[in-house]
């Protein structure tokens, strides 16, 4: 993933000019990797292909001989043995012992070529990592599954990384811990954190900008109607100044401040922050979604916080005796000296 740093300043945006796109970012659309390509397999007869398909559809769970027999009653035991042997020989299928029962599992067609030149350990580790898909796997879990000792495992992982067969990814959820997955997989959103993360860093600046811009949009809607507000009833007017997440998304997309393809869900998350800021209200619509509108708070800042004591960090230590006291308090002195009316 390329680096996306919001090199844009907050002022620039709030000026309202449609600023050029500065944030560079490739879309984070999670790539769904099909674990097993469904390409026709040459050199196998129809029956063998049938069986292979069955195995592939079961993925890593594996299929026992009984199941094959059930699915394809036309194949006799002899046929099944012949087919499995053929598939094993072609490297398409592996045989595993699961709790005393033999099961067959289809192998990734790409695997055969990729692991060429690797030793058994590497193969095992590779398989384990591959099974984890794009959610990745902790090194500890690899060790438990592979039964390799730490130093050996480290070596194997390093070697696989060197061959660009697997990669390590930092997870958003758990700080410094590394997750391993196949080299060309796009990490799952739960690991990257989606639109709000770049290289595992939470883009709080980006969130703040979106927060401001969403509010700006809603306030703008209100201001645009301000002159004509009494042409409508208050309820109609309220509907007119409201916007759905979809509309806000459209505005944000057109603003071009984000090259990330934001989804409606992402905007909802941002609108939710505004809701908790107390700056907007939401109304439940008939279709179960919300519409949002900017609102005024019920009170202006109260008198308490307009004088220094209301925001004083040491109020708990302040009394008529002792070091911190109102008679000599610097905060009060500064505030009283200020020419301007603060009220």
């Amino acid at each position, binding site marked *: 993933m390329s680096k996306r740093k919001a090199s844009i300043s907050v002022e620039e945006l709030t000026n309202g000019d449609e600023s050029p796109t500065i944030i560079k970012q490739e879309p984070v659309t999670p790539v769904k990797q099909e674990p097993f390509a469904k390409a026709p397999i040459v050199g196998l007869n129809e029956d063998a292909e049938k069986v292979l398909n069955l195995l592939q559809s079961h993925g890593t769970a594996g299929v026992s001989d009984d199941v094959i027999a059930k699915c394809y009653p036309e194949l006799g035991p002899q046929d099944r043995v012949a087919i499995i042997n053929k598939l094993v020989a072609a490297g398409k299928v592996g045989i595993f012992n699961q709790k005393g029962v033999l099961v067959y599992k289809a192998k990734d067609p790409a695997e055969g070529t990729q692991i060429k030149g690797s030793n058994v350990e590497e193969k095992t580790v590779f398989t384990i990592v591959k099974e984890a898909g794009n959610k990745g796997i902790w090194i500890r879990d690899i060790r438990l599954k592979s039964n390799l000792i730490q130093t050996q495992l480290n070596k194997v992982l390093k070697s696989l990384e060197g061959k660009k067969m697997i990669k390590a990814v930092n997870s958003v959820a758990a700080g410094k811990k590394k997750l391993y997955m196949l080299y060309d997989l796009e990490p799952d959103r739960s690991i990257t954190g989606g639109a709000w993360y770049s290289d595992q860093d939470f883009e709080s600046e980006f969130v703040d900008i979106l927060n401001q811009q969403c509010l700006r949009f809603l306030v703008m809607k209100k201001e645009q109607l301000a002159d004509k507000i009494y042409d409508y009833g208050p309820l109609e007017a309220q509907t007119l100044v409201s916007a759905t997440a979809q509309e806000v998304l459209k505005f944000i997309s057109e603003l071009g401040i984000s090259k990330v393809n934001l989804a409606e869900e992402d905007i909802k998350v941002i609108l939710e922050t505004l809701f908790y800021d107390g700056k907007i209200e939401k109304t439940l619509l008939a279709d179960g979604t919300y519409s949002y509108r900017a609102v005024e708070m019920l*009170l202006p800042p109260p*008198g308490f916080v307009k004088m220094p*004591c209301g925001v004083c960090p040491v*109020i708990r230590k302040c009394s*008529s005796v002792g070091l911190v006291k109102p008679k000599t308090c610097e905060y009060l002195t500064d505030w009283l000296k200020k020419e301007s009316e603060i009220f």
Partner: protein
Amino acid sequence: MTELRNLCVKILKEFFGDVPSQIGSELSWGPKTLPLIKSALKLPLAKVKEGLVVLISNGVAKFEAIKEGLAVQYILLPERVLTLSRIPRYLATIENKLGYESKLLIEEVVKHGTISISQMIIKVAARCQAENPEEEVKVSKLYDDAVKLVFKEYLIRMPAVEDCSGNVPIFANTEENFKLPELNAKNIRAVVKGESSAKLPDHNVVWRLNHRRFDQDLRDEVMISAITKRFDAYAGKLMEILLKLMYERTSPWQSVSNPIPITLIKDTLVKARVKNYLYANIQQYLKVMENDSSRFLSTSIEGPNNITVNVKHAVESITHTLLDHIVAHRFGDKPRRIFRIIRSKKYCEQEQIQKIAMVPDKEAKKYTYKLLEENFIQLTQLSRPAATSGPGINKVFYLFHVNLDAVVQMVIHQCYQALGNAMSRRDHERSENARLIEKKNRIDSFAKSLKEQGQSENEIKEMLEDLMTPPEKTLLENVNSVFEKLSLAEEQLDDTLFILQLFQHFQRDAIKNES
């Protein structure tokens, strides 16, 4: 409670001077008998008695019999002391609603603590005469105003003394708090004109301020201005009408009003000859206000054509906003977001907070712990019993939540402290500049006497010009602006306090009703 004690003493000193404040300070530790107060203060008995009379007649202290009537103890009423500093606001509302004369009458009551209606009128008349010697005082107008003040319950009648033979007087037990005594406007006029000095028939029926009534006005103001701020002036007007209609059918300090028919609101507007935008859109306005998260109104259970005013919810919403502002100013916008998340989710895990607040891990933790440290939020530990979560694993959850009552209580105390701080700073500034202030006062009285001798304004100005040096003048200006700023701060602090106390009032009521 130290903050409250200190503050009370300061207020008492400001309003009534040294002795009553010293007595108040003694009583703030708990009820005391007269000999105990005397020995603690080492003051002559007469002085102590005088001071106690001041406190009691102003309603900031009371007495009760102990030891089966053998002794009397005196009790300070701290909450009442605090309302003293609210009096300027009371006066302003009264002037606003009922005019200048009513304000003068109330002022007279404040000055004396308790007073009879005739005396009230006579004193105000004398004052008007002195202020404006040329004009004849309209006693009948004052009379009407005074009666109106009683009628509107701004004044409350003190119970008559039935028996004062024992140690403690026994008061008549009467429900007639607002019953007018026998009054005679003619007699009063005669006294005002100096034609008679006979004792007026109502001389022993005395009245004091009905604080609750004034507070009700202030509360209405707060609610109306909140609605005006959130919606518009029309909505504010509607709120005003709703409150008026509420009081016609519900006692004013109920949490929820009785249903108010919408047709009645319309009638009120018609009667007031208002056929404007509001009239045309009443239904829509009601809907909008009802749907708002502030929950001032709700449709009544009696059907869609009735509306109820939910005073308790309104006060809660206003208090929420107040606390939000305080958190935002003290800690920042993001802590406010976190504070609001926790409050609306009731119980909330750290992880959940981060997710909704969209604040980086570390920052979110920092803010949450800051709020915790400053007691704006609380932490509860919940452990799930081992049985349900598998053997040996005893999972512990840490949940944040907001204990609103506790937060309100804490902020109230901080307001007390801030108020006390502002007052002691004012005292300090006054004594620092005592010499200058004294000089200014002397010059002023000199100017006044010159004026009385018939000197013209300009001459006086010239003569006095040089009495103060330029640096002195600037200093004086500064001192004055400092005083102004501090008094304004005190007034505004009281606004904050008032809202928080309203909140407590309705919470307390709720507890009472439940039990």
